[in-house]
């Protein structure tokens, strides 16, 4: 499924009707991804690391016959990386560059967040290199950061894309 232009960065803070998201945990922080981009959620499985790749690219894994690159979101988001546990999951998302697996500490729930509960990130935090937060939702006791998928993925090696595609079997 192609990534639809669902609520993106520009819409942050706008009284969008509703956000339908998957909420997950990285250490003790909560994040959310648009449910449209999530393909499936699998248990932690063997990941083959690729020598010489970026620190937070954990490697590649076999998802029912497909080779899927996996990113450790904790390393990407600068959250303390602990050991993997029985709760650790790989959230498989469909990005502009194909399927990608995101390692998270736990997947907590799927929910709808009313638009008025979402605020633009700048009003609360101002991280200069923030490329992936598109809003913060205040839910009861906790804060959930809404993540922009394309922003969280590494700026893909643009130059190599055509080449990599030509290699694809």
């Amino acid at each position, binding site marked *: 499924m192609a990534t639809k232009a669902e609520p993106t960065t520009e819409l942050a803070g706008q009284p969008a009707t509703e956000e339908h998201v998957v909420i997950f945990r990285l250490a003790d922080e909560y994040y959310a991804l648009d449910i449209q981009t999530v393909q499936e959620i699998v248990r932690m499985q063997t990941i083959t690391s690729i020598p010489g790749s970026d620190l937070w690219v954990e490697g590649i894994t076999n998802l029912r016959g497909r*080779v899927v690159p996996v990113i450790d979101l904790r390393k990407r988001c600068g959250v303390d990386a602990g050991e993997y546990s029985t709760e650790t999951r790989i959230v498989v998302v469909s990005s502009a560059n194909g399927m*990608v697996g995101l390692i998270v500490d736990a997947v907590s729930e799927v929910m709808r967040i009313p638009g008025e509960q979402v605020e633009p990130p700048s009003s609360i935090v101002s991280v200069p290199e923030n490329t992936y937060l598109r809003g913060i939702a205040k839910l009861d006791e906790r804060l959930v950061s809404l993540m922009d998928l394309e922003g969280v993925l590494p700026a893909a090696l643009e130059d190599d894309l055509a080449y990599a595609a030509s290699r694809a079997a």
Partner: protein
Amino acid sequence: MASTKGQRLQFDLDDDDLKLFCEEADEQIELLDTSLVQLEGEPDPDLVQQIFRAAHTLKGSSATIGHKKMASLTHAMETVLDAVRQGRRRPTSDVVDALLAGLDALRVLADEVVTCIDSGIETARLEADLHAVLESHDEIEEAAPAEASGVAYRLDPEQVEAALAGMANGTSLYFLEIAIAAECQLPSIRSFQALQEIDALGQVLATWPERDQVEAGAGEFSLACFLLSSQSEEQLQAAIQAVTDVQDVHTRSVAQEDVDQPLAPASQPVAASAGAPGRPQLMLVEDGAPADAARGPSRKATQSVRIDVERLDGLMNLVGELVIDRTRLQQIREQLSAVLKDANLTELTENFEETTSHLARVTDELQEQIMRSRMLPVRSVLTRLPRLVRDVAAKCGKKVELVTAGEETELDRSVIEEISDPLVHILRNAVDHGIETPEERRAAGKPETGLVTVTAWNQETYIYLSVKDDGKGIDTATLRRKVAEKGLMSREAAESASEEQAIQWIFLPGLSTAKQISDVSGRGVGMDIVRTNIERLNGQITLHSTPGRGSEVIIQLPLTLATTKALMVVANATVYAIPLVSVTEALADHEADIHTINGRKTLRLRQRLLPMIDLARALGDGRPRQMEAGRFVVAARHGERQVAFMVDRLLGEQDVVVKSLGDLVGNRKGLTGATILGDGTLGLIVDTASLVSEQAALATPA
């Protein structure tokens, strides 16, 4: 006329028709492409007919969909071809040039049907050219009517021998032409009867149409044959005239010294009554095969269906999955039997083993079959070459003859798509740089016409393509100078390198040996790109050259790109697949002859010194070592360069299905992709080409 370029066009066809139209147009254009070049000089009536028919078909189909430009251009081409066919115009090079120019335009016009956008191509001038060649020579030289009209009867050498033997035994050789009455309803049966009658009169050496065709009921209104008989001409006449509907029998006695000469048909009734207008007249059949081919698929009658390539690709992927599952099952089987041996379950384990090994066999078979179904004869690539050679040779003022062999060799369609460009490039080089000018060749005591041979063949699971020329060979003196001039090597190193080594420099990036850059080849982006492309396909390219005698380039490619045979190894706890095509040897390091030279570990193998490289480290694996390095050594080559990779363990050979690493990971140095292993985890496929050349270069002191 104002340019109409870019305007939208509309044609009278729906999607299904479009597919049909494209398939047909491609087929006919391809046919024209191959055969027009052969037309020049040698007007084989069979070929002329075939070409005429192709043009005619194109005219019909383009008119049907309302493509006026295309219909009108094909009409002009058809008119010229008709004149050639009827012997009114010889297919000299200006005729062929005009037709080829038309053909190029046809391609563009056929594409318009798909794009529906006016390419702005101008056909009026091409049509005028075609008319002009027709006007320029309206007559045919009278001198050689038999050759010119394209109809000649001739015995092949074997038959000539038989004829001479018969004549030595006192029989005479006759040439008979039999005409069947035009009103006859069943000319094929009458031809057959006449042939039977002739058989009774003596020994028939050759017939036109061929005996097989006559016997199969494909005879027509005329029949010609060479007959060895002891009877007189009158007796023959009388006997054959007795067959119903035989209108005329023309006999000629052939003298011994004329046995191997071609004969022209008698001018009267035979030709006059020969079949319907527009049909091929009697054909000169050389060895049966071309005639069969000309008659088209109806005769070959192999059963086939057209399958969408995507569907085949899908099947191939599924089989790839199946292969992985098979390997996996076998591993589970081994584990299970180890566990179950203790429990008293022998029968169950045996059953299980039987089933898994059967599944393995079936999977192998299935994989093989599907791979075969994706195979195409390499012909489709080779057929484009004569035209190319003709054009290139004309541009550089050379005379070149191209001979191709092994057109039937089959390879995967994905390989075919990829091989075309490199092959064309090599061939251009051979003609442009390899073959000398006619003057140079004469001076060197060679025939003026250079010979380029393209041969394809299979060996084990590889296909080989060789491009060989009898030109001047590679000019190593120039290469040595160039290499030094461009700073790729020191002058001393360039001078002291062996001939063998120097020849290989042709593959160095940024090197062109042509004295002048021509528009045909040689912009310094030549052979290195070719080599890169071949290696991307897991292939190898090698070059041999003898000064003054010519060069030969040999390309070795796997039969398919979907799976690759690889040696599986473990290095620092990661499984790697090293494509087998590059592996020359694998050995345990205690058996290896290892030396330390200048502080570097070096393997001595068959009189060569190979730098030893830690595979994991070379790929950039910075993790702590999980195991003692260098327990095994794998020697790999890339062109002439060799290195020895140090790995921890050898896992054996395996067919691996190549998968892309994905866009996100992108193009990793030294890796071409990943493959799924028997246990469901992933292994990495090593790009030996880049790794070997990089490491070999590092190891060579500059």
